[in-house]
Each structure stands twice: as C-alpha cells, then as structure tokens.
C-alpha cells in the first residue's frame, strides 16, 4: 500500500465501513507515514464540521408530509403488472432474460437481411426457394442415366436464365465493356460421388445457378468405379467463387478455364437484327400500298423470309447473352475408393495433408470473419435494443 492508495481509502476507514483486513493494513501504514496521519486529522476535522453543519441544518417544512400525502392520493400504489419485477421473477425470468430476448428479437427481425448478406458474401450453401428465381428456361440435358430427385427438379425446372441478368449483359455490351463467355472445367476425386453431387446441387442453388447436365455412372457391381459429370450454369460474377468452392469438395485432378469474347458478335448481331426489323416494317408498308395480288404474294414471301431471319438472329443473340450472363462449369467426379491413384511417398502425403489443413483453416477463417462482420453489422441494433431494455427496466422496474 502506498500513500495515494491509503488516501483514497481513508474516508471509509474513518467511517469504519472497511473490512477488517483492509483496516489493519491501513493502521499499519498509518504508523509509518506522517503525511497520512495529517490527512486523517484533516478528514476528522472535516467530518466533525459536517456533523455540526448537519446538526443545525434546516429540517423539512411541516407541510412536507401533507404535500406528499396529497400527491399520492387515496388509492394504492399504481402497479404495472407486466413490468413488475416481482411478477417477472415469479415467472422465472432473470435479469439477463430481457437482454437475451432483445438479441433474439434482433436476429429474428433481421434474419432475412442476414440471409441476403450470407448469399452475397460467401460460398455458404443456402437453399433458395424456386419462387424466388427468375422465369425458368428449358435447358438441354446431354445424358442422364441416373437422376436424383432434387437434381431432376433442378434440371427440368430452373435453368436459371434470369431476364434481369441478361439485360445486365446487354447493358454491359452497350457500355462498351467486353462481353465474355466463360467456361470452366474441374476434375475432382471425392470420398463419395453421391454426396458430392448433392453438395454441388445445393451450391448451385445458393449461387442462383442451375444444373444443366448430369451423367451419373453408378457402379454396376460392388467395388466398381463410380463416376459422374455435372454441368453447371452460374451467374458470371459467381464463376470464380463457385469454382473455388467446388475445388474444396475433394482432391483436384484437373482444372481449366476458357474465355470467349462475344462482344463483336453481339454488337454485329444487334445491328443486323435492327436492319431486319426495319426491312420487316418497310415490307409491311409496301404490302399495304400494293393493290395487285401478285405483288402482295411476292412481298408476303419476302416478309416470311425476313421474319425467319429475325427469329434466328434473335435466338442467336439471346444465346450469346445467356452465355455471357451465365458461365458454364463442367465437373468430373471420381470416387476416391476406386480411382487408381499412384501411391504417393510420405513426403507428398504430408505435403498434401498440410495443404488440406491450410485449406480448411483458410475456409474456417473466412467463415469466422464473415460471421464476425455479421455480428458487427448488427451490433447497433443489439445495442439500441439492449439500451431500450435497460432504460425500460430502470424506469419501470425500479433500482432496488
């Protein structure tokens, strides 16, 4: 104990409200410090003066009691049962119940926003209701010897070609940005092909994409090889993230990305389409003016041929825009158990294990940071609700 510490405790030493061990320490120190003895004498003087002041201080007026009784009126104290702490306690609600309720309420209220943030920020797999998707467009399926229920619905129902995303691609072209159609392929060795297919399907849904093709070659006999090839269509801006998530599903045996620049083709097709539509309009005018049957038939023939060209070109343009808006990824899956893999040496195995551990650590770190940011984002709401709960409690539940 030093002089400053003792000085801060002396008022309560004087009023004898300190615990015995603390009193003893102070008494020991007092015998060795003249400064502290002087401080104590000063406090005694101050205390005695205060006592004198209080002894002669004015008492409350005689009307004090009458005034209070008049203000409280004839009835009993006004209870607020729903905020009565005694009632709350009898119901088993503890002090932190209100705070917990505030936090839960915050997350319930803002769960939809939370889901949107998760979708926007990371590769977390969140099922998306079909109703939330854009108008479906039928997509071709190469081969599907075996179909899973969920995959089936995904393939047939939602190729997920969003009109909004297509218009974005068109805007991109008109804004002189490059219209790039990206295609990726990845080969994976996975512990279980069936469960990998399920995960890929969920991942595709969460990325607002669709499984557009599936070839699942289940083993005909026990111990046989199980392989599958899945073709995905995902929004172009999720291409990289999806490819990375897919790589995390197993051991990557191959990976490739190709990009085709469709800017000129789209611009050219748009120009030709405009010309053909003008030609169609002109032909319609000519047909209206022409009085001869032979001329009308001739114009009709030309009109039919122009319309056919318009439809073909329109389909081509849409297809190109679709390829720009949605990237295609082909995933080749092989069962780990039956995939012939060269036996790696101990060094390679340790290196692989280390890389896998790092990959897991990185994934966990990203997940942790994302969740922490989510909590930080909601912190103001939690703080406001907690403050409101505290103020309500302080105002209505008393301080006792």
């Amino acid at each position, binding site marked *: 104990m030093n002089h400053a510490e003792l000085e801060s*405790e002396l008022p309560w030493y004087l*009023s004898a*409200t300190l615990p015995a061990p603390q009193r003893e320490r102070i008494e020991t120190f007092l015998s060795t410090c003249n400064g502290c003895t002087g*401080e104590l004498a000063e406090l005694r003087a*101050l205390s005695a*003066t*205060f006592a004198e002041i209080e002894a002669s201080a004015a008492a409350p007026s005689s009307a004090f009691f009458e005034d*209070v009784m008049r203000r409280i009126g004839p009835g009993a104290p006004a209870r607020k049962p729903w905020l009565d702490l005694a009632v709350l306690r009898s119901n088993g609600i503890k002090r932190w119940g209100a705070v917990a309720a505030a936090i839960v309420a915050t997350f319930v209220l803002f769960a939809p926003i939370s889901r949107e943030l998760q979708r926007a920020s990371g590769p977390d797999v969140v099922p998306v209701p079909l109703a939330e998707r854009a108008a479906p467009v039928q997509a071709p399926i190469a081969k599907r010897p075996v179909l899973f229920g969920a995959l089936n619905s995904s393939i047939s129902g939602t190729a997920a070609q969003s009109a909004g995303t297509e218009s974005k691609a068109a805007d991109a072209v008109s804004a002189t940005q490059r219209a790039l159609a990206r295609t990726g392929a990845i080969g994976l060795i996975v512990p279980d092909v069936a469960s990998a297919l399920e995960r890929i399907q969920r991942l595709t849904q969460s990325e607002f994409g669709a499984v557009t093709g599936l070839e699942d070659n289940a083993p005909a006999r026990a111990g046989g090889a199980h392989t599958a090839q899945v073709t995905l269509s995902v929004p172009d801006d999720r291409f990289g993230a999806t490819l990375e998530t897919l790589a995390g599903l197993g051991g990557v045996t191959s990976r490739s990305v190709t990009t085709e620049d469709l800017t000129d083709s789209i611009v050219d097709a748009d120009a030709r389409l405009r010309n053909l539509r003008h030609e169609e309009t002109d032909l319609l005018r000519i047909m209206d003016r022409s009085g001869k049957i032979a001329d009308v038939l001739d114009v009709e023939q030309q009109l039919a041929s122009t319309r056919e060209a318009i439809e073909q070109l329109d389909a081509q343009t849409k297809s190109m825009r679709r390829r720009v808006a949605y990237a295609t990824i082909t995933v080749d899956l092989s069962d780990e158990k039956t995939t012939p893999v060269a036996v790696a040496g101990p060094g390679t195995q340790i290196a692989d294990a280390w890389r896998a551990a790092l990959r897991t650590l990185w994934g966990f770190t990203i997940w942790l940071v994302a969740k922490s940011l989510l909590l930080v984002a909601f912190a103001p709401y939690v703080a406001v609700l907690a403050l409101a709960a505290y103020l309500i409690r302080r105002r209505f539940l008393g*301080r*006792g």
Partner: protein
Amino acid sequence: MQPVDDESGLERSLLRRIAAGDRAAFESFFRAYERRVYRYVARMVSDDGLANEAASDVMVEVWNSAPRYAGRSKPSTWVLGIAHHKALDCLRRARRDAALLHLAEPPRTESEDPERRAIESSTRAEIEAALETISPEHRAVLHLTFVLGYAQAEIAAIVGCPLGTVKTRVYHAKRALRNALVSAGLQREVS
C-alpha cells in the same frame, strides 16, 4: 449514520406493506426517512425551494415504486438512490445543470499542505460556503461519505457509478473543497 440490519429488516417489511397500499406503513417509512432524504437533496440542490420539491418527488416515487422494490439493496440505499436521481432531475428542470452539474477542475499538483491547513483551520461557515461552490455530484459523495457514513459499495449503488469512480469522486470532491477554501482565504486576505 448507517442503518443497522434490524432496521433494514423492518424497513423491508414496511416497503412490502406500502406495496400493498398500507398508508400507515408509508407514514412510518416517511418519518424514518424524511430528514435524511431532505438533507441529502438539499445538500445536492443548494436551494430550499428545490429541496422541498425534490424531497416530495422522492417520497411519491417511494410510494409508487414500492411494489417494484426487488430487495437487492438495502432500503436506505434504494431510497437515497431515488433521492440522488430526483435531485439531479430537479436541477435539470431548473435549468441550472449547465452551471451546477459540471465536475470540478482536475486537482492541482502543488504541495498539499496549504490546502490541508485550509480545511483544518476553516470555520463551519467557511466550509458551508465552500460546499456551495463545488458541483452537486461532489457535494453528494461528500455528504454520503462524511455525514451518512455509507460504505463505498452503497455509495456506488446510490449514485449509480462503479466502485472505483466513487473513490475518485470523493478524492476530487475533497480537492475541490480544499481549493474553494484556499480561494476564499486568499480573497479574504486581499480584501
């Protein structure tokens, strides 16, 4: 000084009866606390009119809040906690908070001896006058410590601040009082 435990038990019982609307119990409680409450708020607000108003508010609040007294603290701590906040409310209502609620300047670092002598040699009237010049929060903690003799934890509960802040506030309150006495002494010497 501090109420003993028996008194505390009796007061808890009175509060339970008040919660049930027993006016006789309220009168007993009122009589036990009227002077303590009045002196405390009077010390804080430094104005008889405001003190009467604040003390009246405190007792009405005791009546209204008795059903919500949870028993976590002593009745005296609870009542003086109400008194503390009512006195501050009263000061704010009177629009004097800007002048009265500020805390004193940080302590000076010069030798303490002249200041210490200032308290020991000051008369009662001088100390009373000096008390009027320091902030209500400082007057409150000095009153709770030296007049009512409350422990640190009880003062913390009454004024609604952490335990460490109580020590700091009492320390600064003493320094503010010393400074006020020294200033008053200097002025007297000049005049």
